[in-house]
C-alpha cells in the first residue's frame, strides 16, 4: 500500500503509472482516437481507480498545474474514489496521508482555478469529513480557519465545504452522513455557533469532544465577511461573487442553526442589508444606519 502509506508518495510523480494514466487520458480526449482505442483507454482509467497507488497518483495529477484542468480533475476523481469506496480498508496512517493531500490541494488553490476543480476539492473534503471528522480528524475546523485566512479564493472554497457539509449532514438523503448523523450534527452546531450562544442554549452539553476552533464560529465569520463585501457601497465583481456565495451558504445553514446565533452575529441584518446593496434599478433605496455596516 505504498500509494497511501507513505505521506511523501512512492516517487516524484513521474512513475510509469503516472505516464500511462496521462497517455490514456490523452487518447480518451483526442478526437482523432479510434473508437476501440478510446474504449480501451477508458477501461484502463476506470480499472486504475482500484490500484493501490491510485490515491497518490490522483494527488500528483491534481497538483500538476501544467496539465490541462481535465487531467487535474481526473486526479481528484481518483482521490474521491479511494475515499468513497476504499476507505474502510485504510490504516489510520493511510487515512492521515489522504487527508494531508486533500488539505494541500485545498491550500494550493488559486484564483484562476476553474470552478469545477474547486467544487470537486470541496466535495472530497466533505467526503473525508463525513467519515472521520470528530473521530480521528479533530483539527478540521482549525484547518478550515487556516484556509479562510489565506485569500478570498480560499474563503469561497471554505464556504463550498460548509455548504456541502450542511446539505449532506442535514439533508437526510446521504447514507454515509446518516451513519454518523448525530455526531456530525453536533459537530456542525458546535463550529457554526458562537461559543457564548452555545453555552447559553446548551449549558449541559458534553464538552469532551472538542471539534471547534476559535470562539466566534462560522456564522460570525460569514456575517463579518458579508459586511466587508457590501460595506463601503462599491461592490466589485469579487465582492459580489463572495457575497452571493455567503448568501447561498446561509440559505443552507439558516434552516438548522440555533436561532439566537443569527441575532447575536447580526446575520439577518446583513442579509437584509444585501437587499439594500443589490444592484436594483431603483436608487431610491435609502440605506439607513441600521443597514450600513462598519468595515473592520
Amino acid at each position, binding site marked *: 500500500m505504498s500509494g497511501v502509506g507513505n505521506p511523501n508518495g512512492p516517487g516524484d510523480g513521474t512513475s510509469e503509472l503516472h505516464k500511462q494514466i496521462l497517455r490514456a487520458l490523452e487518447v480518451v480526449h483526442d478526437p482523432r482516437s479510434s473508437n476501440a482505442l478510446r474504449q480501451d483507454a477508458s477501461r484502463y482509467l476506470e480499472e486504475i481507480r482500484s490500484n493501490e497507488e491510485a490515491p497518490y497518483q490522483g494527488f500528483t495529477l491534481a497538483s500538476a498545474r501544467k496539465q490541462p484542468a481535465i487531467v487535474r480533475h481526473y486526479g481528484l476523481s481518483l482521490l474521491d474514489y479511494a475515499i468513497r469506496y476504499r476507505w474502510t480498508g485504510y490504516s489510520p496512517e493511510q487515512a492521515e496521508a489522504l487527508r494531508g493531500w486533500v488539505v494541500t490541494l485545498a491550500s494550493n488553490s488559486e484564483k484562476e482555478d476553474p470552478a469545477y476543480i474547486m467544487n470537486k476539492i470541496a466535495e472530497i473534503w466533505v467526503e473525508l469529513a463525513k467519515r472521520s471528522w470528530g473521530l480521528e480528524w479533530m483539527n478540521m475546523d482549525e484547518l478550515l480557519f487556516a484556509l479562510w485566512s489565506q485569500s478570498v479564493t480560499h474563503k469561497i472554497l471554505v464556504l463550498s465545504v460548509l455548504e456541502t457539509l450542511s446539505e449532506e449532514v442535514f439533508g437526510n438523503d446521504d447514507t454515509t452522513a446518516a451513519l454518523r448523523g448525530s455526531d456530525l450534527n453536533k459537530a456542525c452546531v458546535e463550529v457554526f455557533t458562537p461559543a457564548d450562544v452555545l453555552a447559553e442554549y446548551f449549558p449541559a452539553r458534553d464538552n469532551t469532544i472538542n471539534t471547534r476552533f476559535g470562539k466566534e464560529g462560522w456564522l460570525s465569520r460569514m456575517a463579518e465577511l458579508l459586511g466587508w463585501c457590501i460595506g463601503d457601497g462599491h*461592490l466589485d465583481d469579487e465582492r*459580489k461573487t463572495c*457575497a*452571493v456565495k455567503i*448568501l*447561498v451558504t*446561509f*440559505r*443552507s445553514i*439558516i*434552516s438548522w442553526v440555533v*436561532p*439566537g446565533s*443569527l*441575532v447575536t452575529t447580526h446575520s*439577518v*441584518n446583513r*442579509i*437584509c442589508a*444585501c*437587499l*439594500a*446593496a*443589490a*444592484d*436594483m*434599478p*431603483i436608487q*431610491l*433605496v*435609502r440605506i*439607513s444606519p*441600521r*443597514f450600513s455596516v462598519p468595515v473592520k
Partner: protein
Amino acid sequence: MNSDRMTQAAVDALYSLYNRTRFSVDDIRDLVCPMLQEDTINLLNQLYQWLIVDPSNIDEAKYLLLKKFSEVGGHTAYALMTFLIIN
C-alpha cells in the same frame, strides 16, 4: 436575467429562515419582530415595487423572485400571528 443575483440569493436565504417551523416565542421576538421596523418595511416595500411584473409581458426570473418574496411575507406574517396569539 433582470433580477440581480445578490437580491435573489438574499431572498432565498430569508425564505429558508422564515420557512422554519420550530420557532420559539423568543425566536419570533428576536428574528421576526425586527422585520417590522420602519427601515425594514421601507426596504421590503422598495423591493416589492421593483418586483411587480407586467402581466402582459412577464419577466420569468423576476416573477419567480416575487413569488418567493411573497412567501417570505406569508411565513413572517404567520409567525407574527402565532406570537400575538401567545402574548
